[in-house]
């Protein structure tokens, strides 16, 4: 046999993901808090935030096993956390939050995810649903023309590599300097739209090549752009602080990331770390990591920052085009200020209190949103006495939520909360059950316009394929890792 002697590959019967799942001890700490006690190689316990209903689906996949694997990584502090929308990912679970010591700890591309700085931007407006009622379709059609979406749809500009490197270095600042939006947008963006440690020089040619045609594009999959209206306000004071005044107010939500450039950065560093450190002893190859202080660890962090900046520039450009469309169709982009822009796939160096001492930690949020409470210096001055806005997008055609960060979250989850609904059903299953056109018709009956480049994509993203986002935010609110502020519902949906 030509290959048989090379490696002892396990036989396919051992790859099965369900039959051999180990029974994991799970302690109920309260109605919404579950703990995997420290055992075996775990350096810290793992904590899962979920209601009984959310826990049911979590137990069906590898979420718990992955949370436990993360708890075994060097330098992990306090806990390996899973947010209420958690589900199985690669290496780290989606909804996973883990913080590592800056000396002993690690940084892992798998703890950030392939779509670096996948995130959400929310714009408010002075329009009411009545104002746009008859223009909804036109707004959507025009947005569709302005914002490139879908698979393989190129961006607007043919960029040179040197301009792209400038974008990677300066993020949304570059976009604003080039006429996309205003400096106020930067104030209302996590990191002011630019991670300062970005080093564009580390980015591979392959990643640059993938980034050039895709700048300013929405992409496909679960990414979307919605015109929404405020459906409910839970906390009028916080809502007012965030620019949310009344029911029926029109908002715009943009959900997308760093496109092929970010995916390539993740793949590149997984490979570089494998080649440098080998894969021996890893329970899952996607857990590959580097000491955060090592040259390669730093290099990944600086490259990740560059991909983060690409995504900030991307959302900045898309938001600008949306305002252009409103100006054209409605006669003005009245009051279309940015509420906030959050990252939900990222690693950051942040100060957190461990054993009574404030220390710098490398916090990984993979499918988790930062949820800093009042007083944190990282959040915009306008919100500093309130807590940051947390934007949690629902699945296509369902509600999304605005929460406020809390001080309690710092102790409960290193200042993090959920990031969305979390998938429940495979795309194949969704395709078998739903048809895109049928979903469009059903949404239309509910008064929601939908346009997409792919009906197949629409079927895959059917809301029934997702967990109940209402339940996810309710659990976040009950535990105190995010405070409910407002619920928004779509009136027009653009899906890539």
């Amino acid at each position, binding site marked *: 046999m030509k290959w048989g002697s090379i*490696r002892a*590959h*396990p036989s396919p019967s051992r790859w099965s993901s369900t039959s051999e799942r180990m029974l994991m001890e799970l302690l109920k700490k309260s109605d919404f808090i579950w703990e995997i006690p420290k055992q075996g190689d775990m350096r810290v316990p793992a904590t899962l935030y979920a209601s009984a209903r959310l826990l049911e689906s979590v137990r069906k996949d590898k979420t718990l096993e992955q949370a436990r694997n993360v708890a075994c990584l060097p330098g992990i502090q306090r806990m390996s956390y899973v947010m209420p929308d958690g589900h199985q990912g690669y290496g780290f679970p989606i909804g996973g939050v883990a913080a590592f010591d800056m000396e002993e700890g690690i940084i892992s591309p798998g703890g950030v995810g392939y779509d670096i700085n996948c995130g959400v931007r929310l714009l408010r407006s002075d329009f009411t649903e009545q104002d746009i009622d008859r223009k909804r379709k036109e707004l959507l059609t025009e947005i569709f023309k302005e914002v490139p979406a879908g698979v393989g749809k190129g961006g607007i500009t043919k960029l040179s590599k040197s301009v792209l490197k400038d974008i990677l270095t300066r993020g949304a600042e570059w976009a604003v300097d080039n006429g996309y939006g205003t400096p106020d947008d930067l104030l209302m963006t996590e990191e002011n739209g630019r991670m300062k440690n970005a080093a564009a020089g580390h980015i591979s040619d392959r990643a640059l090549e993938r980034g050039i045609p895709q700048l300013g594009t929405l992409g496909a999959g679960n990414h979307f752009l919605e015109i929404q209206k405020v459906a409910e306000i839970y906390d009028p004071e916080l809502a007012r602080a965030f620019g949310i005044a009344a029911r029926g107010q029109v908002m715009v939500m943009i959900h997308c990331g760093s496109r092929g450039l970010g995916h390539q950065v*993740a793949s590149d560093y997984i490979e570089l770390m494998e080649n440098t450190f080998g894969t021996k002893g890893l329970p899952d*190859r996607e857990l590959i990591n580097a000491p955060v202080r090592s040259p390669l660890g730093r290099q990944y962090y600086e490259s990740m920052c560059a991909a983060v900046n690409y995504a900030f520039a991307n959302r900045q450009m898309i938001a600008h085009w949306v305002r252009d469309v409103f100006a054209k169709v409605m006669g003005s982009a009245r009051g279309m200020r940015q509420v906030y822009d959050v990252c939900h796939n990222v690693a950051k160096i942040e100060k957190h209190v461990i054993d009574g001492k404030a220390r710098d930690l490398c916090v990984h949020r993979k499918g988790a949103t930062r949820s800093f409470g009042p007083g944190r210096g990282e959040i915009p001055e306008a919100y500093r006495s309130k807590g940051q806005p947390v934007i949690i997008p629902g699945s296509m055609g369902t509600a999304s939520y605005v929460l406020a960060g809390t001080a309690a979250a710092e102790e409960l989850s290193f200042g993090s909360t959920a990031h969305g609904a979390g998938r429940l059903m495979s*795309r194949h*299953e969704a395709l078998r059950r739903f048809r895109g056109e049928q979903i469009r018709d059903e949404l239309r009956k509910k008064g929601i316009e939908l346009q997409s480049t792919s009906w197949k994509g629409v079927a895959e993203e059917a809301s029934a394929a997702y967990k109940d986002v209402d339940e996810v935010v309710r659990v976040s609110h009950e535990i105190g890792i995010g405070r409910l502020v407002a619920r928004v519902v779509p009136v027009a949906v653009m899906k890539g």
Partner: protein
Amino acid sequence: MEKTTDGFRFLEHTADAKFQAYGRTLEEAFANAALAVASLMWDPAEIERNLDHPVDIRGRDLEQLLVRFLGEIIYVFETRRFLAAGVDDLTIDREDGGFRLRAVFRGDDKPEKYVVFGEVKAVTYNEMGIDTGPPVTIQVVVDI
């Protein structure tokens, strides 16, 4: 278990796409895995085979070779607008420090002529398996 075609089969996976590809040889299974990835984005049977794209890839082990090879389909699509419809002349050789794969993608670089219905973000090591058989079975999860 569903969507069976001759050389590959998709399995249930909550968030992403998981498949097994088969072959009498490792080369055949790798080629079928490439078709599985392409079939998540377009229908390979619909794409005209009027252009070649040569592939020459190294990997420190078979898994890395597979990840890099399948990643090439995404890369040539995003950067050259090349839709792979098939793989010819695929060879895998052992060499110092790992493996080398050479092949030719056949396809077209006019995506506007076809329906491109899906996006594959990345090829992962998650739940990856390579049973060198024979027959050969490969399992891959891709991020979509």
